[in-house]
């Protein structure tokens, strides 16, 4: 069995003492992809923020077996992209991606040649080289999402926390971005934990799903274990069919109630 990249035990989190999420247990092996799914307000983003350390939380959070990492040590192991990241519109793509090197620099230090070469490498892998000198304002939705991913990848962490990385993207751009994340995961052995609201994408890309409802774990396991039509109907209050495509992929399809 592979060593664990992330282990959560009885994790709870919330805003000013009011727990939004509680009692979460989950193990993610190194190189795995865990998708956190659940209806709106289930606490998906809150859980991710607590793991990222940007929201106070409790319980046991072990990153590669370690629990008491300083903020900076944590930032070298774990990269986090929020659901709606603030993009400083006037910055160039290169300057923006360079900010990802922050945890590897002294507090007042400047980037060195190594940092610049890492950023060049990330830009070329995400096919952003041609946009390097452009300001963020001029990018399309898909390009912006790739720029955010590049900023996180420049952190060179072994664990990526991505909150709804496909927000606002059409089906083609969303698929391309998820393929890209999956390729990086396989090439680098990176572990991915993401929230995804699209259950079909979650089923096809993630190796494990964690279904949250009302701040508690409703189900946990492989996509085919978690995604049954009865369960989706129960937790999402939606009429769906869970289908297997001709090529053997799971798909969650909404159907008109009563039809």
């Amino acid at each position, binding site marked *: 069995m592979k060593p664990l990249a992330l282990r959560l035990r009885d994790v709870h989190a919330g805003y000013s003492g009011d727990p939004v999420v509680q009692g979460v247990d989950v193990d993610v092996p190194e190189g795995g992809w865990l998708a956190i799914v659940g209806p709106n307000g289930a606490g998906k983003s809150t859980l991710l923020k607590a793991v990222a350390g940007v929201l106070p939380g409790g319980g046991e959070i072990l990153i590669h077996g370690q629990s008491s990492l300083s*903020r900076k040590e944590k930032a070298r192991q774990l990269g986090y992209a929020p659901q709606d990241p*603030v993009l400083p519109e*006037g910055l*160039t793509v290169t300057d923006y991606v360079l900010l990802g090197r*922050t945890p590897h620099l002294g507090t007042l230090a400047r980037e060195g040649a190594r940092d610049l070469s890492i950023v060049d490498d990330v830009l070329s892998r995400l096919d952003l080289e041609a946009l390097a000198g452009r300001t963020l304002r001029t990018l399309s939705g898909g390009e912006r999402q790739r720029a955010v991913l590049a900023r996180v990848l420049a952190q060179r962490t072994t664990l990526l926390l991505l909150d709804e990385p496909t927000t606002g993207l059409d089906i083609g751009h969303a698929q391309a971005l998820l393929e890209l994340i999956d390729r990086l995961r396989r090439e680098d052995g990176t572990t991915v934990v993401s929230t995804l609201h699209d259950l079909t994408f979650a089923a096809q890309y993630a190796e494990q799903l964690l279904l949250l409802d009302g701040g508690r774990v409703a189900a946990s396991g492989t996509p085919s274990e978690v995604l049954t039509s009865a369960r989706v109907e129960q937790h999402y209050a939606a009429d769906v069919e869970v289908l297997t495509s001709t090529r053997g992929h799971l798909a969650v399809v909404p159907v008109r109630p009563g039809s």
Partner: protein
Amino acid sequence: MLLGLVVLVVVAVLSVLVGAGDLGWQRVLKEIVAQVTGGRSPLSGREAAIIWQLRVPRVVLAGLVGAALASSGATFQGVFRNPLADPYLLGAAAGAGMAATMVVVLLPATTGWVIGPLPLAAFAGALGGVGLSWALGRSSGGTGTATLLLAGVAVASFLTAVQTFVQQLNTDTIKQVYTWMLGGLNISGWREVWIALPYVAAAAVVLCLCARLLDVLTLGDAEATSLGLRPGRIRLLLLAAASLATAAAVAVSGLIGFVGIVVPHVVRMLFGASYRVVIPLSLIGGASFLIVADLVARTALPGELPLGVVTAFAGAPFFVLVLRSVKGRAL
């Protein structure tokens, strides 16, 4: 950057050449060259005093004040992620204005102070206003910038109200207070330079060193935290440095508006939005801009124009010109 410094030096030298007293710019240039190279001075003792005791310190002070206001303005815009933020936002202007009014009203004729009571009060008032806003923002439980901003608005209106009230009770001093508030460098000498220099220099060093961190702050607190930083501490350091520089500027020059907003934006439009460029170029650009503005203030008309009027009068059209030429590309 280097070009900017060259521009600054050229602007400074040019503005020393011109001024009241009609010394002839060629002779002044010769005097400067003589002083630098150790040659013989072409001027009389009195004329040399006009240059070295009046014009040069005034130009130096204009540079210091401009650098302080522009770099502080840039910092405030970054910390609050608001393009309209200026260094007076957290009550620095209102605090200084109130304290200065109190001094004018309560200590009508003062002599024999090493540092005049007015600059001292303005300095303390500016820092007091910002400190009060910070304390109020903290006690309201907010850690973000929105609470701090609102606290600043509340403190500023309160202090302005106090100032207006005191002023209305003492209408005979209105002109004196008003003159001070419009800003000017007409009483500046080397003493004022030495008052302002340490604060402005220290703030400039801190802001330049922290410019990269300011870039990270513009990503928002969540991302700054996930990158291993403590955004609250960085904000405190940056605002403290910027406010110290602003207070020093206000103490020696009164309230000069516009520089803190216009200069950083012109820099952004021309050279990009990264604070690693914006902060140092705002220091240089602010210094150059205010030296020119002060030159206009003291030479355009027989009397002195209030510097604050000149910065707005000259700055606004210039700003529009730059805005049009780049079509708002970098805003």
